[in-house]
């Protein structure tokens, strides 16, 4: 809103800072649970908003992505600087880790150059002072022209002082804002003044940006800023020319290049300033961390400990999580049953019971998984162990073109792809996140297991275990190959270096963990639940319509007749007829028609149309494949009419399913597009484009591999 005459009663403030500077704990202390989590427009970088009041001001606070700098190289940094320039927050609070003040002030300097009204928050002040170090905050404030306030974010100490400083800065804006530009040595400074003058002559070119900042960015070779000036305009081209000449000149004069000279200049300036204000005890604050690391990243113990942590996390998420899942399942089943019994039998009741309640059920069933997994992940992250895990696993994951931190999402994929994909948020780079998201569904999730057990049991008898094992292995091999393929083709342009900070180990706070867990769960319910629900209803519709009224009526009549007889044989007949009715219904539904329609496509894989239909219904959830097969083969999922089980029905030679085709079917279930919930999760984490890509590549992969297995197997004579 810029500097207005009267103090606005509404304030917009932004939190900037390095990763691991405790920005989140400051944010949580300010807002409590009153947060909104979403994405920044156009990118899948998380945007957190919070609201609170302080001294009569309605304050809206934005948590900017954690960055070390403000370049155009990473999405996070672009998001941060675009927000600062375009949205012009009233005050920017820079959260600084006091224990690592030099590197943090490097961002402070850049924020000042960007011309924002800045408050420097010296966070983790307790850690800093217990080391015996001293920092003259007032002197630093004078040097930088920005108030400096010490805080202890995770204990909420100093937050009020910080907010008082915000209010004070807003109310006395005019006199506070006097930042002295830093100097970069004679070579750069001369050019900077020349460029700044040129830029000031044509203000229409630079919009909201300060001219000097643009000049610096031009020398640094910032792509975005160059683009901003690549206009058909005499002044713009003159400026670009000058910048280019200056870049060459600085390169020759300093035997370096401007980007390096400017970075060195910033660090030099900070070093000079700190000499005046900082008396640091020459101790290593990583002392305790290093002692812990001598166990956690120990050459031999590191991996067993890591695997033990991951095993515990997995067991908690999926074993312990299964208990509340059972309750939810039972409750949804009971609710559906009760409603079905009370509502008059009609289309509406079918929609409510099967469509809506079934849909809601399929959304909330994952909630226990998500809550437990994210509580665990928050613990690993907040304690600092997650970066150590990445440190241990990077060598292995890098071979797949992934990042060390990709391991945990991939492993969670064996439980359920949905929380696993949500867990890719722990990866900083968008490239790694997208790549991991694309690969996670190849890890065979637990919902696919019932399909393998059914098919394996039916066709491979004692060797079923081996068959299922091969399937799991195949998923891992596919993940490795696909990972390498995508890393060397689609994601080649953006190599992600493994420049990762190992923060000191810290005790996580209950508040931080709970807020994080609550946030994830809410995102899942709010942002994904609706879409999943809608999709479930659509799929229900496609499975239930068009209704074959004539046929069902005649069947129903027959059923009623047989029921009237009431003998054992008649009741048997009723069951048979009901199974027929269900089979006819799904056969004539849109999904059934689609399954028959795609028969020519799946025939080369050795699949029958029934299998095609079950694959389509498998979009709802993979275990539905089993129940659909049960309905289509006129049996229940376990045992059906005439005492025949689904296993026997599948094995029946009359159905023409060879063991080879059955194996190809298992492979297809492993590799093809995951369930709707996963697809929605992919869209949320990677964007709509990647969602479609994921659907397409998995369908293609599943078809090709199954085709290869079936055709080669037939040729070799396995069929």
């Amino acid at each position, binding site marked *: 809103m810029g500097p207005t005459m009267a103090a606005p009663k509404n304030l917009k403030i932004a939190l900037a800072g390095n990763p691991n500077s405790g920005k989140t704990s400051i944010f949580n202390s300010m807002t409590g649970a009153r947060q909104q989590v979403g994405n920044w427009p156009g990118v899948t970088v998380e945007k957190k908003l919070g609201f609170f009041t302080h001294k009569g001001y309605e304050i809206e606070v934005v948590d900017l992505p954690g960055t*070390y*700098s403000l*370049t155009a*190289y*990473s999405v996070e940094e672009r998001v941060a600087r675009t927000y600062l320039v375009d949205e012009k927050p009233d005050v920017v609070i820079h959260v600084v880790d006091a*224990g*690592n003040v*030099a*590197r943090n002030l*490097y961002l402070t300097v850049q924020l000042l150059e960007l011309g924002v009204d800045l408050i420097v928050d010296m966070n983790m002040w307790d850690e800093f002072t217990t080391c015996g170090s001293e920092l003259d905050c007032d002197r630093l404030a004078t040097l930088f022209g920005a108030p400096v306030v010490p805080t202890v974010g995770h204990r909420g100490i100093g937050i009020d002082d910080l907010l008082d400083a915000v209010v004070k800065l807003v109310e006395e804006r005019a006199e506070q804002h006097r930042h002295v530009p830093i100097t970069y040595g004679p070579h750069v400074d001369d050019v900077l003044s020349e460029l700044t003058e040129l830029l000031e002559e044509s203000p229409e070119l630079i919009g909201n940006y300060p001219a000097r900042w643009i000049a610096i960015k031009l020398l640094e070779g910032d792509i975005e800023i160059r683009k901003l000036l690549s206009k058909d305009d005499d002044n713009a081209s003159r400026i670009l020319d000058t910048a280019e000449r200056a870049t060459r000149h600085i390169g020759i004069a300093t*035997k370096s290049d401007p*980007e*390096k000279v400017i*970075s*060195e200049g910033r*660090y030099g300036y900070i070093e000079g300033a700190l000499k005046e204000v900082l008396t640091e005890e*020459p*101790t*290593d*604050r*990583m*002392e305790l*961390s*290093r*002692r812990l*690391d*001598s*166990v956690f*990243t*120990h*050459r*031999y*113990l*590191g*991996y067993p400990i890591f695997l033990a942590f991951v095993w515990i996390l997995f067991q908690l998420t999926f074993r312990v999580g299964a208990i509340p899942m059972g309750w939810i399942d039972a409750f949804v089943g009971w609710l559906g049953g009760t409603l079905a019994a009370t509502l008059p039998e009609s289309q509406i009741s079918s929609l409510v019971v099967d469509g809506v309640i079934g849909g809601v059920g399929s959304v909330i069933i994952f909630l226990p998984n998500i809550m437990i997994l994210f509580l665990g992940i928050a613990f690993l992250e907040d304690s600092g162990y997650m*970066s150590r895990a*990445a*440190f*241990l696993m*990077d*060598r*292995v994951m*890098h071979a797949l073109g992934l990042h*060390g931190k990709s391991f945990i999402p991939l492993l969670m994929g064996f439980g359920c792809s949905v929380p696993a994909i949500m867990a890719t948020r722990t990866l900083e780079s968008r490239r790694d996140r997208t790549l991991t998201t694309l690969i996670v569904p190849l890890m065979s999730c637990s919902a696919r297991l019932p399909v393998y057990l059914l098919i394996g049991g039916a066709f491979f008898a004692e060797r079923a275990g081996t068959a299922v094992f091969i399937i799991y292995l195949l998923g891992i091999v596919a993940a490795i190959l696909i990972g390498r393929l995508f890393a060397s083709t689609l994601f080649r342009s953006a*190599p992600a*270096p*493994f*420049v*990762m*900070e*190992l*923060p000191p180990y810290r005790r996580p706070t209950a508040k931080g963990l709970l807020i994080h867990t609550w946030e994830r769960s809410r995102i899942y319910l709010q942002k994904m639940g609706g879409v999943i629900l809608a999709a479930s209803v659509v799929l229900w519709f496609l499975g239930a319509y068009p209704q074959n009224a004539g046929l069902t009526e005649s069947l129903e009549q027959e059923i009623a007749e047989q029921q009237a007889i009431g003998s054992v044989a008649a009741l048997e007949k009723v069951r048979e007829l009901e199974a027929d009715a269900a089979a006819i219904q799904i056969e004539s539904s849109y999904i059934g028609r689609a399954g028959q329609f795609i028969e020519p496509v799946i025939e080369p894989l050795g699949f029958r149309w029934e299998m095609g239909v079950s694959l389509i219904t498998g979009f709802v959830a993979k275990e539905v494949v089993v129940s659909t097969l049960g309905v289509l083969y006129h049996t229940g999922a376990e045992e059906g009419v005439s005492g025949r089980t689904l296993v026997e029905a599948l094995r029946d030679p009359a159905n023409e399913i060879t063991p080879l085709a059955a194996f190809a079917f298992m492979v297809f279930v492993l590799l093809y597009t995951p369930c709707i919930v996963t697809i929605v999760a992919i869209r949320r984490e990677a964007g709509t484009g990647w969602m479609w890509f994921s659907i397409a590549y998995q369908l293609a992969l599943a078809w090709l591999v199954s085709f290869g297995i079936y055709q080669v197997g037939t040729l070799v004579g396995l069929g």
Partner: protein
Amino acid sequence: MTAKTPCTVPLTSLAPGDAAQVVNLNGKGAFRRRLLDLGFVAGALVRVIKHAPLQNPIEYCIGSAHVTLRREEAEHILVQQVPVPDWCRESVADGGRHRNRKRHRWGPRWLHRRTSR
């Protein structure tokens, strides 16, 4: 800055416990800038903390932060070895072991054997 001195070596040629001063940075684009932003500027003091168990990412200390780099990335950083500063000699010289601190040696002895080369 001393641009070229005979003993300028890539950072990867140092062993855990060594200290060095950054002389120059090769590489380009986003990666080089990230290193600059993290403080790998000429004159900065870097210490090698430890190699990951599979030898590949390596933990370095720059400023007061610990940062991991892959071997192929650390190769872009050219340094000059310097004596380890006194204040961190004890904690680093043996790459993470603490010979003189008996009270912190919990657990069996084998747990405290060399953690890195």
